[in-house]
């Protein structure tokens, strides 16, 4: 499991790669939460790029719920994009589609969150 981030203006795109289950959920939590420290109203917005996430268990989803709660409390914005079909089904079955705004791609999310970030991601 790997977590990496790229900044486009006021949007941080955090990419999650690999599999998350009960064995590495704590590691995932420790890797993800620092990126959310500035995610609040008027500061950063965060896009979770899940295109390379192969599987997420309930333990990983629990970490995502903690992240969503923290961001909501700070009145920030956290969205998820590019879910692989299996992960999307897991989100649907576990009702996490009600927790996160989902977008088909990073570009779609950037356009919705921040035109400045969308332009920068195109090299503008």
């Amino acid at each position, binding site marked *: 499991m790997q977590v990496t981030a790229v900044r486009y203006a006021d949007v941080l795109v955090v990419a999650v790669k690999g599999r998350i289950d009960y064995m590495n959920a704590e590691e995932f939590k420790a890797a993800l939460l620092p990126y959310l420290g500035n995610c609040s109203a008027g500061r950063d917005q965060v896009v979770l790029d899940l295109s390379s996430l192969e599987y997420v268990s*309930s333990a990983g989803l629990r970490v995502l719920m903690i992240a969503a709660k923290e961001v909501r409390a700070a009145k920030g914005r956290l969205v998820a994009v590019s879910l692989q079909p299996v992960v999307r089904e897991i989100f649907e*079955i576990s009702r996490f589609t009600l927790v996160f705004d989902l977008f088909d791609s990073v570009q779609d999310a950037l356009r919705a969150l921040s035109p400045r970030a969308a332009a920068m991601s195109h090299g503008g």
Partner: protein
Amino acid sequence: MRVRFWGTRGSLPVSITAEDIKGKIVEALLAAAGRNLSSRADVESFVERDLPFAISHTYGGNSSCVELDIGTEDHVLCDLGTGARSFGLNVLARKGLRTPCTFHVFISHLHWDHIMGFPFFPHAYIPGNRIVIYGGHAGMEEAFRRQHAAPCFPVDFSRLSAKIEFVQLAPGRRVRHAGLDITPKLQLHSGDSYGYRFECGGKAIVYSTDSEHKTDDATATRDVVEFFRNADLVIFDAMYSLADTVSVKEDWGHSSNVVGVELCQLARARHLCLYHHEPVHSDLKIASVLQETLRLEEITRGDHTLRISSAYDGLEIAV
């Protein structure tokens, strides 16, 4: 061993409504349109084979009560929710009033929905019967006496004619009762609850209701997996969605279908039975949760296939 479900609803018994029945009849007649159903046999076959379970049947509304039939004269139950009344009436119909019976009852915990059937359990009122109630809580007898006391109920516990005994079990300590090897496990629930692993003749059944699993706790998860290890059947509290159990209903002491699948896959259990259904769920909703759970098992399956059912009042599973 045969497992019979007499009550499968969580928290509160519920009843199907007139509107629900009407909806089922409308759906059934629509599905029957254009078919040749001129004989009773044709109709029964259509109802059994062609209609979805949620239309032709109901999951039922009694609260928790499960029978383990190991082929002995004694009866073994898990919990005494309102399903215990149906079970008792069934035993009376089969054995009559005058046959002395012994019941071994394993109580998950003392919340009302798990003991509220006892005041209506007919054998408690008949001399010659013996009822042994096992559980992990020190206050078992007091809880049963209190629900019989005024002003809650008109017949005091002291007036019950059966011989009633209480046996406290220690979590993790395997004991033998009623022809079964039984291991209780302390579970996460308000006021504690206990799951039971029953073993008999090389088969293992786990009864695990009213238990919250915080699966990011790797140690606790490993413990539960060992408790479920290679079980032939796991009866599992799947009351809420996963999202609910980690948000608005966190610490409410219940679990989800998603966690049930994960734990059973890790434990290589053979059969997961979704249990303790949310009382607000309709038959269609429970059926839809089952379909989603079957799909989850399919897309997350490794080299082990997990069978999945959803419990209903009247379901019988051979183990």
